[in-house]
């Protein structure tokens, strides 16, 4: 009959090198027997003494690792920081690259839906691959007792201290992209005819007459907005001047785009005629969209003033001595 001790010793030596198994098994068994005997002498019965001793010794795998010096962590402190740095670096661009490539090949072989599916599948498999292979490589490095050749840390590798910014970089960048898209759309929508109408032929979406009226003003407001966003990107802070400039540019946009919209002069009249809309519905839709755009811009204007106010307040506080 195998005893608990037999099973414990077996479980322990199973994960030590074969050449040492018998030796360690004999040692361990004799030590366990001594400890059990010691407990029995104090009046404990053999069975519960055996259980207590083995419980104290703990999980066999852990004990075996003490004998062999096997590492109980996948990646230890020596390589953890390098592993983390490399994993983050790779995670930033490798999955995106694989996603774009697989979306591209799916697009060529199929349609837009396939491309989206290919993008998501590529992204996920990229994340899994980067995570798995870097971790595997470092886990092996951790166990192989070799010089990894990873350069030692030096003071020259210290990063420069980032300037304190209230506005995250992504915010002005996204805004600039958006303004450029809107501007390009407006120019194309007033000049290129791609809207098919019932009678055959194509029409432009917006009234090309805008070129001699409101459109230059709209484009001017977008240009000013882009300039303001560039200032935000560089300085990283809202200021009163920026907030006022934002108010001016937003007001100009709302007037220059909203007025013709409300007057129903924005869309190409020939195109509208081909739709056969009811006059009231068209007017209310125009007003609704104008109000919506104005509200969104109002929010951004208020945000600008609130942020500028907060900044000027903290700037004052930081000068005053702490009481």
């Amino acid at each position, binding site marked *: 009959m195998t005893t608990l001790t037999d099973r414990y010793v077996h479980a322990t030596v199973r994960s030590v090198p074969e050449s040492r198994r018998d030796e360690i098994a*004999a*040692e361990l068994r004799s030590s366990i*027997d*001594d*400890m059990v005997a*010691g407990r029995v002498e104090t009046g404990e019965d053999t069975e519960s003494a055996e259980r207590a*001793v083995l419980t*104290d*010794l703990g999980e066999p795998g852990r004990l075996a690792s003490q*004998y062999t010096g096997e590492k109980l962590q996948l990646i230890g402190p020596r390589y953890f920081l390098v592993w983390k740095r490399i994993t983050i670096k790779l995670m930033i661009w490798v999955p995106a690259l694989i996603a774009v490539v697989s979306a591209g090949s799916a697009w060529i072989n199929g349609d837009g839906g396939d491309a989206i599916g290919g993008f998501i599948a590529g992204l996920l498999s990229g994340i899994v691959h980067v995570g798995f292979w870097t971790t595997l490589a470092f886990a092996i490095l951790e166990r192989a007792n070799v010089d990894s050749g990873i350069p030692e840390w030096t003071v020259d590798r210290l990063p420069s201290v980032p300037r304190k910014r209230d506005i995250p970089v992504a915010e002005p960048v996204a805004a600039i992209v958006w303004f450029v898209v809107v501007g390009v759309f407006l120019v194309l929508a007033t000049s290129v005819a791609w809207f098919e109408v019932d009678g055959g032929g194509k029409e432009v979406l917006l009234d090309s007459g805008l070129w001699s009226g409101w459109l230059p003003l709209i484009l001017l407001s977008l240009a000013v907005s882009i300039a303001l966003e560039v200032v935000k990107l560089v300085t990283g802070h809202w200021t009163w001047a920026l907030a006022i400039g934002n108010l001016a540019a937003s007001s100009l946009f709302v007037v220059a785009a909203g007025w013709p919209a409300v007057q129903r002069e924005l869309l190409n009249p020939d195109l509208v005629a081909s739709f056969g809309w009811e006059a009231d519905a068209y007017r209310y839709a125009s007003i609704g969209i104008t109000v919506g755009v104005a509200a969104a811009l109002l929010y951004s204007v208020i945000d600008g003033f609130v942020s500028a106010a907060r900044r000027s307040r903290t700037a004052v506080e930081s000068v005053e001595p702490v009481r």
Partner: protein
Amino acid sequence: MTWNDTLPTHLQELRRGTAVVASLAALRSPGHGYRLLQTLGDAGINVDANTLYPLLRRLEDQGLLTSEWDTTESRPRKVYRTSADGEQMLDALLTDLEAVRTAIATLTDRGIS
């Protein structure tokens, strides 16, 4: 973190390494593993069995202990003894321990000079 939480951690840090010194010192008179465990415990050095047995194995591999199987009693036991190399190692460790003790004593008396 309360005092009661941090104390065991600091004590563990402080005691790390003393098991080696204590074992090398105690095994100048030969003994088997379980007896060493008891001797150390009686002397106030509490080492877990699952730390001590692998430690003896390592010290033997490093040549600091020698061992032989004692088969005179009913059960065979492995008896360890501090080797000549072990004695040298013990001397070096005790010298350092003494240096640490002196340094701490000086700092306790004087504080930052």
